[in-house]
């Protein structure tokens, strides 16, 4: 289980390695994903149904509260439903991000039995943890599409514009997740503090309220807030039938590649010390 092979693509014998991962690792990743999904709801009567019902309930509450209780409206908009659609198009990805981060942070410590008894690349655990965020994202996107159709919007090809954003989002979050998972092995407070940090991040980014409601001075900086860029990446295609802004995509690409490579290098540097803690 030697680490530190950070060569982008390498051919060793008959196996091709990308960033130190080969085909067997890909299969194992798939295994961990299935395992993670299964274990999260293991023992519950409804099982995997919760993976869908939980985010759906959350979205339902938001729809009810903002559309019927607060009757919130976007500046210049006529219906509350458009606010809810706007909100969920940002909140859905956010839900996925927080799910990804929480799962990947605890991925190594939570699977100490595996780490101690199986020879494999431990990087795969936080990566699989981060990919778990795909479930709430899929649910919220379906919910959103349903709302859009209800509000009379016609499906559009530009909706596919969220796909590159989705990929970049997961690359970015996986990078951060790798860092947090490695740190959490040594400083267990990481996983405990994370929910609060996520809450602060949520309200400091333009997800519950539009960017225009922030003070002018802050707006310029917030433009480059990764979560704002990601949220916009979903909102442009879904709400405005426009492809995501090229600069946004470029910015996000640089950011996520840096985060992923950085996270991987950091994780591989630290994982040699895991045995002192697990």
């Amino acid at each position, binding site marked *: 289980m030697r680490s530190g092979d950070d060569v982008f693509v390498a051919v060793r014998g008959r196996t091709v390695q990308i960033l130190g991962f080969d085909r067997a690792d890909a299969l*194992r990743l798939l*295994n961990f994903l299935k395992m993670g999904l299964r274990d999260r709801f293991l023992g519950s009567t409804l099982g995997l149904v919760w993976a869908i019902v939980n985010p759906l309930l959350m979205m339902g509450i938001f729809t009810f509260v903002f559309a019927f209780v607060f009757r919130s409206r976007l500046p210049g908009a006529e219906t509350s439903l458009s606010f809810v659609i706007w909100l969920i198009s940002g909140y859905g990805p956010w839900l996925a991000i927080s799910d990804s981060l929480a799962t990947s942070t605890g991925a190594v410590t939570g699977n100490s039995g595996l780490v*101690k008894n199986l020879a494999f690349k431990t990087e795969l655990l936080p990566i699989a943890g981060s990919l778990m965020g795909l479930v709430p994202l899929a649910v919220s996107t379906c919910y959103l599409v349903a709302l859009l159709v209800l509000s009379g919007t016609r499906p559009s090809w530009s909706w596919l514009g969220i796909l590159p954003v989705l990929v970049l989002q997961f690359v970015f979050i996986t990078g951060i997740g790798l860092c947090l998972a490695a740190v959490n092995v040594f400083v267990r407070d990481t996983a405990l503090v994370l929910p609060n940090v996520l809450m602060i991040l949520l309200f400091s980014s333009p997800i519950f309220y539009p960017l225009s409601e922030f003070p002018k001075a802050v707006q310029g900086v917030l433009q480059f807030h990764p979560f704002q860029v990601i949220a916009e990446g979903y909102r442009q295609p879904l709400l405005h039938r426009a492809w995501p802004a090229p600069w946004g995509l470029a910015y996000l690409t640089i950011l996520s590649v840096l985060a992923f490579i950085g996270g991987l290098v950091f994780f591989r540097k*630290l994982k040699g010390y895991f045995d002192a803690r697990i």
Partner: protein
Amino acid sequence: MPGSSWAGGLFATAVPGAAGEEKPAARPVIECRDLSKTFVVLDGQSIWRVILGGGCLNGFPALRDVTLQVRQGEFLGVLGRNGAGKSTLLRTLGGVYAPTSGTVRVAGPVSGIYELGMAGNELLTGHDFARRWLSLHGTGRRQIGGLLGEIAEFAELRDYFNNPIYTYSAGMKARLFFSVATSLPGQIYLIDEVLSVGDEHFQTKCWRRLRERLSAGASGILATHDWAAVLKLCREACVLERGRIVDRGSSSGVVQRYLGLPQPRGDSAAFAPHLPSVYCALTEEDTTLSIPIDVRVASVIWFGCSVESFRQGIGWSHLLQVEPRPIAPTPGLYDVEMTISSLPLSPGEYSLNLFLSARGPEGTLVPLDVRSWTYGNDLTLSVAGKPRESVTILPLRWRGRRALS
């Protein structure tokens, strides 16, 4: 002592399969050279040095310059007290820990039984645990399907196989885990202390399974403080002490030194220094073994002898044992000549054990000098000749007679 014959106190065990057969040297499947493993000792400050990088870290050396080799079809015994580094050695060989320095080479799929920890969710059923374990070890879906039935049967969990693991007793968990971890044949097994689990019935099954795997060509390492298990399973063994190999060699010798059995001092009578270490003989030929002894006291010395064989996975078996006989009533140098007419052993290498003793006050024999595998100083009896399918060749006559019905 002229004409003492084997026929006197001979008993033979009919064990199927040839004993002590010589195999050509098999290829090594586990090899490590100068293997060292140091665990970093972490405290409040050094944690940040690890995370942020830089600064020196204090380490605890768990393994130091371990070099060993295991050949295909062999199990190596690793003896050692708690904290000697046995588990660390197994995990490092199995690839769970990265070595601090040195090289590890393992040729083949590894099945690591490092602890009976279930390495998984207790809410899983036994069935699902088995499926998960196998798929994490890279077993294909089709093969898993075939193995599951066998696992259920071997673990004897019956209906419990489909119940969650948290409903299991400790013994049931151990049975499930052992069954799953040894279900794949032809693996390299790294086994840590687990053979002492379960009830006697299940232990017997465990041994049988390991024997089957061994005879099918599996190899591995058994790390334990149970020296009896090492004697049973391993031809070779080593002793680990504070991360270093302090002794190695044939299991019997290693175990004897590990236990620190007192060696008779050979004051009143001893085997002479020029006692050969190997005796050669031909199967079914009249054989004379000449054993030089040195008697230093004027009392009756008793001479005894046995031929034993070691088979992996079964352990030691007595093949022949000679009733002790009085020899040499006066001091002096003697040659005990023992003639065996038509040596009843098939070709192979056997352990020849010799005992010199005196009658104690209660009539029991007190050893004066011993050459035996239990003391790690046995002799070899090398028998050549035409291969046989039995171990011992008894003077039997066969006749098939039709029964009157």
